[in-house]
């Protein structure tokens, strides 16, 4: 919310500069996107986080001890999801330093992801029942 208001304030201030305009724009934005602002949005993300934690606990506690090693390597592979962040950080036209950092981040994250899934698969394939 804060961002949008500030940004709109600035832009409009350049254009017109009168206090009334500002007030009108701000109230229009406030009404139109009542829930999409900074803090409210953050709480929405927080809600997603909390739900995912609850869900994780429910599912993980159901996984039998037999599969705990694959679980460890598998969830480790999932934590390589930062790969998405790495791609976003590298892909944007962001200057050489950011690109180098992003490139290395991608290499690291892909090793984590691909290696993790492959080794988990290797382990799990052993668990197929032999009957």
């Amino acid at each position, binding site marked *: 919310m*804060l961002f949008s208001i500030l940004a709109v304030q600035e832009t409009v201030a350049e254009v017109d500069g009168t206090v009334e305009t500002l007030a009108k724009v701000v109230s229009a934005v406030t009404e139109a996107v009542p829930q999409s602002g900074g803090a409210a949005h953050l709480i929405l993300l927080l809600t997603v*986080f909390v739900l995912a*934690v609850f*869900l994780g*606990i429910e*599912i*993980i*506690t159901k996984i*039998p*001890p037999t*599969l*705990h*090693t*694959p*679980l*460890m*390597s*598998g*969830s*480790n*592979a*999932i*934590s*390589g*999801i*930062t*790969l*998405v*962040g*790495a*791609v*976003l*950080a590298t*892909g*944007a*036209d*962001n200057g050489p330093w*950011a690109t180098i*950092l*992003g*490139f290395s*981040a*991608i*290499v*690291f*994250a892909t*090793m*984590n992801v691909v*290696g993790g*899934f*492959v*080794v988990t*698969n*290797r*382990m*799990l394939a*052993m*668990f*197929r*029942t032999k009957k």
Partner: protein
Amino acid sequence: MSPDLIDLSYLLAASLFIIGLKGLTKPRTAVRGNLLSALAMLIAVAATLRHQDIVGVTGLLIAVGIGSFVGTILALKIEMTAMPQLVALFNGLGGGASVLVAGAYLAGKEFSARVASGACFTDVLTATAASGLIGAVTLSGSLVAFAKLQELKFVKDVSFPGQKLLNLFLAVGAIGLGWMLVTQPEHAQAWYWVMACVATGLGILLVISIGGADMPVVIALLNSYSGLAASATGFVLNNNLLIIAGALVGASGLILTRIMCKAMNRSLGAVLFGTMQSGGTSLSDEEVYTSVRSTSADEVAMMLEVSQNVLIVPGYGMAVAQAQHAVRDLTNLLLNRDVDVQFGIHPVAGRMPGHMNVLLAEADIDYERLKEMDEVNSTMDQVDVAIVLGANDVVNPLARTDPNSPIAGMPIIDVDKARTVIVIKRSLSPGFAGIANPLFAADNTLMLFGDGKKAITEITKAFDDA
């Protein structure tokens, strides 16, 4: 691809991660579950590549190619016994990626434009700092854990007076630097890298004093942290998928940590600060090992011939000896002669949770023969011969009898209640907990000294000849 479609793909990927994890709840569906998770990752990355801001896809693909290649090689070449190290290594790489991503964000143009505009965005900065801090601790901590598990020579257990104080100091320092980053975004990069260095030091110092056998707990905990780091990154980038996947991993690591601590009857604090209750009144080796009787492979084979129920309790020694295939051969032979064979798997036998299961499954032993501790304990009085193969702490009756022992209260597999116990190990030297084991001197115990694999192979041979 429109941003909305990307968001929808992320939602799909998150759902697939969840369904994939659910698959891991049953051995039958586990392979498919893992493939679904991998598919989710593929969808996520593919969707991200279609993002309008992404330029220079070639570079990205090169990086992905390098990473995939190295990762696959590592994953395919590794020995199953080296699994703990590998997970530690991968975990460290994930942490490193977090550090670099947050660093790249701070070095990027979008960030400088934002700083220049003077807008305040404390939440994003906080999440960036958190992701960098957690990532750096995960990176260095995991690498030290890797080195210890791999028994690299140059890593020694280091502990010195005031270490805890130093750790505290570093932790506070790293958080303080993160705080500076948030309050002075114009110098964000400088603060960030200093913070990352301090956090790296903290990670090293935290883990270096922890005993090698506690490493799995540390790895699970660090894995949980790396999940939380991914969630923090998700808050930075306003990305649901990162938040959800990170939360799932965070929960998984925490639960595994708790399970291990519980099975070892130690508090998480005790593990992290490298303290083991000192075995106050515990007896010395001489006192305990007064009447140890040893046996031979031939004698064991004869006993097995007249048995109906055999229980095999594997431990870390089986992993060291790589004896799992030999065990499979013996098991099949016994089953052919109508001897029932079960395996008693202690939750912390070996060096990571489920370690024994993976090894035995590798050797093609039906997982329905692997029984959990409680199950075998309840039928222990019907066991004719219990073979303890390279296990020690997990069958140490002191846990039940001596309230002052370092493992007091840890639930164990009660092999001492079987009719006869055969213990296969190389010497009378202690296991991870470093204490003597009265089981070796019990009336119904016979020791078979030697390497685990060799011993089992000899028994198999003697049994087959008979």
